[in-house]
């Protein structure tokens, strides 16, 4: 497997040098040095200086007086924390930036009402369930002038048509990642993973080297797309067909694994090398991205990601403000800051997840990587989940449970 840097990218000295990145055609933003704390200090200062310059160029305005505290609750590996900390410092905000790693636990935290977060990031249908359930506070778009930088296609999405409660954070798809060293013929469709009766199919030829997600929503949806059903079907005969399909597939799987597992295993390929996966995570492998460091370097160009021909689940993560939030102004200010195109761009370069508001300033290598920015021509075969009631989820869990214990 190759670990060499991609040729498209301008390389500095040494293997882990940080790259000079063209930002808005202006002067290059140089960040780097040795790793570690002192390095990050320098990095933050450099970033701060750049952000100030760029902010002056695009005209970011100073907002209203903010509260002293802000409790943010977000996924791990989902923002450049150096930049976030710098923002807090500049605005004299005591920032609590808290992580979750599993949306289910995060939603339970928010809905029981014990923990008070001012701002969190929740996916599409879950966000809808939350605002319908009365757990979210309306967002005042007047306090977020940078909302105008959000491209139109990310405004008014079906789960919140007027952006009353949510503002796009990032988005992506759930497809198939694989190690091309072991699968030179490539993968194009769900059929490759589900046609277990065809001895020439990918799954038969690579039996035992394939994983599906240990996530009922995603894996049921994958089978549903292959069978041509609604990804959130609650029709029991359809669910039965889905379960049958998954059970038939099961003997040819390595197992149902979690993100961390396939992210570590795909590049090695010893246990398995084809995984039902999220695009951003595959990008995370390829670029070995970090929470602090701004660089573009390809670590594993043999790792590929594909949105299957039949279609795939698309998901949108959103800023939302929980009902019991205390520091409303600060939350709005943070959203506004994040939607600043330059800020969004830096986050994108750091994390390798697309933050739509920054598209304009993202280097072309990233902008053109379909693994990060899902190409718009795929739009008609992407399926967005809908809000489900607990009863509906209970039915789906039944069939998932059937698969898992078969």
């Amino acid at each position, binding site marked *: 497997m190759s670990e060499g840097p991609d040729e498209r990218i301008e390389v500095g000295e040494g293997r882990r040098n940080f790259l000079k990145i063209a930002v808005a055609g202006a002067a290059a933003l140089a960040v780097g040095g040795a790793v570690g704390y*002192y390095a990050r200090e320098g990095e933050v200062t450099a970033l701060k200086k750049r952000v100030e310059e760029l902010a002056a160029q695009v005209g970011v305005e100073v907002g209203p007086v903010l509260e002293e505290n802000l409790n943010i609750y977000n996924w*791990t*590996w989902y923002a450049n924390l150096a930049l976030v900390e710098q923002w807090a410092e500049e605005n004299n905000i005591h920032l609590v930036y*808290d992580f979750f790693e599993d949306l289910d636990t995060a939603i339970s935290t928010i809905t029981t009402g014990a923990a*008070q977060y001012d701002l969190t990031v929740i996916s599409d249908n879950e966000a809808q369930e939350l605002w319908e359930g009365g757990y979210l506070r309306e967002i005042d778009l007047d306090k977020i002038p940078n909302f105008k930088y959000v491209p139109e296609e990310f405004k008014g999405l079906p789960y919140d048509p007027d952006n009353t409660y949510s503002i796009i954070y990032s988005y992506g798809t759930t497809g198939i990642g694989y190690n091309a060293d072991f699968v030179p013929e490539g993968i194009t469709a769900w059929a490759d993973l589900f046609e277990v009766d065809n001895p020439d199919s990918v799954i038969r030829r690579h039996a035992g080297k394939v994983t599906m997600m240990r996530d009922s929503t995603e894996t049921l949806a994958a089978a549903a797309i292959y069978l041509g059903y609604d990804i959130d079907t609650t029709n029991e005969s359809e669910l039965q067909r889905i379960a049958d399909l998954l059970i038939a597939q099961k003997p040819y799987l390595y197992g149902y694994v979690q*993100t961390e597992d396939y992210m*570590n295993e795909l590049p*090695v390929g010893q246990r398995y090398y084809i995984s039902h996966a999220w695009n951003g995570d595959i990008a995370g492998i390829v670029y070995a991205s970090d929470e602090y460091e701004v660089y573009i370097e390809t670590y594993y160009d043999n790792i590929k990601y594909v949105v299957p021909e039949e279609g795939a689940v698309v998901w949108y993560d959103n800023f939302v403000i929980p009902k019991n939030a205390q520091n409303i102004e600060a939350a709005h200010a943070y959203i506004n800051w994040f939607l600043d195109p330059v800020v969004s761009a830096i986050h994108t370069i750091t994390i390798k997840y697309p933050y739509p508001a920054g598209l304009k300033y993202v280097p072309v290598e990233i902008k053109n990587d379909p693994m990060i920015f899902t190409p718009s021509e795929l739009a008609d075969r992407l399926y967005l989940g809908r809000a489900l009631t607990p009863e509906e989820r209970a039915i789906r869990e039944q069939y998932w449970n059937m698969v898992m214990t078969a």
Partner: protein
Amino acid sequence: MKLFDKILKAYTYTVLALIYLPIVILIIFSFNESRSKVVFTGFTLENYYSLIGNYRVWDSFYNSIWTGAVVTVVSVVLAILMAYGVSRYEFSGKTLIDSIMLIPIIIPEIVEALTLLVFLVIIGIELSPYTVIIGHVAFDISFAYVVVKARMAGYDPQFEEAARTLGADEIRAFTKVTLPILAPGIAAAALIAFLESYDDFIKTFFTRPPGFMTLPVYIWNMASRRGFPLDLNALATFVVAISLIFAYIRNRIERRVY
């Protein structure tokens, strides 16, 4: 007999070696240059520099230690009271209490964590590090109880009576005689209670206030999507080293009373 003792000794060292094997792996990879956690590519101290600068790790490490210590003290004290009461006094419902004390160990943690959270909301207690402690103590009492009670099973009450005939009141008889004799059991209970708290993720995750991280919460968050950063290996190395040094020093300086 001699041969048997030798076999036993060899066995013990073998088991110890096996227990340490995964730790050795962690330590080796803490010096790995590559981001890969499977293949060792070259020696570096980079992970240690990055660990030094990672204030979130230190914060959560510190939180884990101090909450764990408080949890251990409180739950072991309560467990000793309980085990002592059950072993010393006859009263109706004793066997019932014995079974009841198992429930906090049995209950699936997620049920326990969420219902405690609901309860805290209902009675209006705000989340704080103390709610984490409260939650941990609630199941740690049981863990400690089971261990202390096992040790107490063979404890002869005549020791305590002897102390009383020698002029010790009940409290001093308990602290000067009963406690020291039970000490190995109590130490075992304390270690178990501490470990349960120190390793707890689910309950901590739900009962903590925003931003309050313990080491497991930090590691779970960091590890479960991207695989843990190698500076955590460096932390593991650091912790093992400290622990072994501490054990060694303790053994050297402590003049045991018994």
